[in-house]
């Protein structure tokens, strides 16, 4: 019998405690937490009150190293294919054409001053497949492939999510390919070290 | 695995495993193989697989062994040997603290391994999973069905020579 009354008593007290907590939150609803980012000093300043941020108008800033939409700065890309090989899910497709000698100047240099030796007609990233693991950007030698902080980029159609970063159009690529063939025909013998060539050939063959 | 056995001082884990193996070897003789004393995961193999359940019971209930806890049971494919197998990681939880791994192998086609689902209940679902993924039978298992793949799935996915089926119930499977 005493257990019976103790149960009733503890029910009442614990329920009232709980109600007190929710009521306190109800009255704290006049305060707002604000949209300070985690790297800002005042992040934990307001610990009570509403925490909701009204997204399209306010949001906590994404940290600098946030990995969301994958982006390639094609001007800096040297077409080394390392990202495509590192990607565990193969969501990057790269095709390269070796630049002919006279084109090297046109092909340009990366922002780091490195001479680019390949045209990259196809650099496709399927962001619908990308799992933002960051392995590709870690291996990129010129740091041209990186994840941006933009996360909100939904689409109505699946096709729109294959991002094309290639720096040549199809026609241009065809022209460059012909040019390379011609150069190879013109000077087949005197090249002592045709080392980078086999690297690119499988890609060309697959095309 | 010979290259891993160097003359470095053996860790306590290996020494304990050796003692365990000796107890089992005394009882079952040549039903079990020599202990592989690698430092990562000392293991022995059950050569006479029809004795595996007896060995398991012995390992669980012998006061010197008391392997009360089965940490893991993994199915493995050995395509070169044309065999399938299981690897069990056992531990005496909270009592003696030692651990050891046991391997049991069977034929690739129609291989049967005695089930230990009633010795360690952990093994129940793990054996079902091994059956699901590799296709070996577990004799004496209370409820041997596929567990992860659907009941009418074709093939055993984790075998090295697995080919994905084209459609499943009219839905295209490969990319």
């Amino acid at each position, binding site marked *: 019998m005493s257990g019976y009354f103790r149960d009733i008593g503890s*029910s009442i007290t*614990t*329920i009232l*405690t*709980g109600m007190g*907590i*929710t009521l306190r939150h109800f009255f704290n609803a006049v305060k707002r937490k604000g949209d300070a980012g*985690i*790297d800002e000093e005042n*992040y*934990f300043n307001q610990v009570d009150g509403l*925490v909701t941020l009204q997204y399209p108008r306010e949001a906590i800033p994404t*940290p600098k*190293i*946030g*990995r969301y939409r994958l982006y390639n700065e094609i001007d800096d890309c040297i077409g080394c294919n390392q990202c495509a090989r590192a990607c*565990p*899910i193969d969501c990057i497709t790269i095709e390269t054409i070796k630049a002919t000698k006279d084109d090297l100047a046109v092909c340009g240099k990366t922002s780091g001053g490195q001479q680019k030796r390949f045209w990259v007609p196809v650099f496709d990233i399927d962001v619908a497949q990308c*799992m*933002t*693991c*960051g*392995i590709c950007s*870690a291996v990129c030698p010129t740091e041209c492939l990186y994840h941006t902080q933009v996360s909100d980029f939904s689409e109505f159609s699946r096709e729109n999510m294959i991002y094309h970063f290639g720096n040549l159009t199809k026609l241009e690529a065809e022209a460059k390919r012909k040019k390379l063939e011609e150069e190879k025909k013109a000077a087949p013998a005197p090249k002592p070290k045709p080392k980078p060539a086999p690297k690119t050939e499988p890609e060309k063959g697959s095309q | *695995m010979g*290259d*891993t056995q160097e003359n470095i001082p053996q860790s306590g884990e290996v020494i304990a495993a050796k003692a365990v193996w000796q107890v089992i070897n005394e009882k079952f003789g040549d039903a079990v193989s020599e202990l592989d004393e*690698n430092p*990562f*995961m000392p*293991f022995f193999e059950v050569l006479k697989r029809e004795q595996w359940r007896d060995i398991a*019971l012995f390992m*669980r*209930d012998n006061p010197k062994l008391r392997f*009360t*806890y*089965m*940490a*893991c049971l*993994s199915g*493995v*494919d050995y395509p070169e040997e044309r065999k399938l197998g299981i690897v069990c*990681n056992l531990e005496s*939880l*909270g*009592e003696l*603290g030692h651990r050891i*791994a046991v391997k049991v192998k069977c034929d690739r086609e129609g291989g049967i391994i005695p089930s230990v689902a*009633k010795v*360690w*209940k*952990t093994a129940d679902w*793990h054996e079902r*999973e091994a059956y699901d993924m590799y296709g070996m039978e577990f004799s004496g298992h209370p409820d041997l069905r*596929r*567990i*992860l*793949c*659907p009941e009418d799935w074709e093939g055993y*996915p984790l075998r090295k020579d697995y080919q994905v089926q084209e459609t499943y119930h009219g839905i295209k499977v490969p990319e």
Partner: protein
Amino acid sequence: MQELGKAEHSSVRVTPKGDNRVIIEKDISSEEMILNMGPQHPSTHGVLRLECKTDGEVVIEAEPYLGYLHRCFEKHAEMVDYPGVVPFVDRMDYLASMNSDFAFCIAVEKLLDVEIPRRVEFIRVIVSEFNRIASHLVAIGTYAIDLGAFTPFLFCFRDREHILNLLEWTSGARMLYNYILIGGVAYDFPEGFKERALEFVKYFRPKALELQKLLTENEIFVKRTKGIGMMPADVAINYGWSGPMLRGSGVEWDLRKEDAYSIYPELDFKVCVPDGRFSDIGDCLSRHLVRAMEMEESLNIIEQSLEMMPEEDGFDPRAAIPKRIRPKAGEVYGRAENPRGELGFYIQSDGKSTSPLRCKARSSCFVNLSAMKELSLGQLIPDLVSIIGSIDIVLGEVDR
């Protein structure tokens, strides 16, 4: 601990004190009904399916069906190289990615034999303890929802959001981090992390207390969980339970103490086991209490590690990562304490290829859930929901 008999069926249930399962009297004639719970059901925490045979409200038998989220982790592990497996490990137990990565890296590093920098060890411990709190918050929050209390769930998610922000600041992602790499971590802590983390600890303590008052001490909550889903310790071990589930049954067993991996032996923390005053040992409430207590312990660990962590200017956390990860031939079973229990990886390497020959994940939920059939015998449907909630399954880990 009870002595197990000689027979195979020796782990026969010993009905513990306080067990309140319903025994159906056979002379009352009633019809059995098959009730299909899931895969889309609010309380199955994902896509678990339970086929319950019920007599009125009483569940006579509940058979779990898995595989609705079977994402072929083990196949992928055999197909991609070692660093590429880590993101897939993330996606296995998506509530505690850091801890899962930690377990996987421990397993591979055993084979690789690399020296991990001390600061990296501290970083790993801190982020995985943060993730443990986040994971337990989800477990407690969803448990509250299962029992019909919605507000604690939102409080839990509110606090979890702070942890996610902290971890995103560190690792660049909110949930699936790919942060703990084999041989190191992806980034060093950002500047000011220590202060913010300590502020979080200061912020979280009163909030945890509030949660405890709102939910754990509530009489209805206690009534709904006390004495439900009783599991004696020996049966629990036989089922292979681990983590909070096993500790809820009164077994003081924590891999952080047992295996003493990383820097855990240097830290001062206790293994949380219910003392039986507030709950019956082995019931749902015990398991809930263990989780609540573990959050507190994790806070202690974080505080200690932040203090002890060596400061190094210009520290490169990727320095110890091998250029090409190709472990020598061998087999290894590496494991770590996940929020849900023992997460182990059995890895087989042939010494030649850069991807594992076999990688089996011993997931804690998979094993914990296998006791569902026995736990659900003779329970009411609301108790069944309560039991599923207390197991705290993550279907990604169950089905892999």
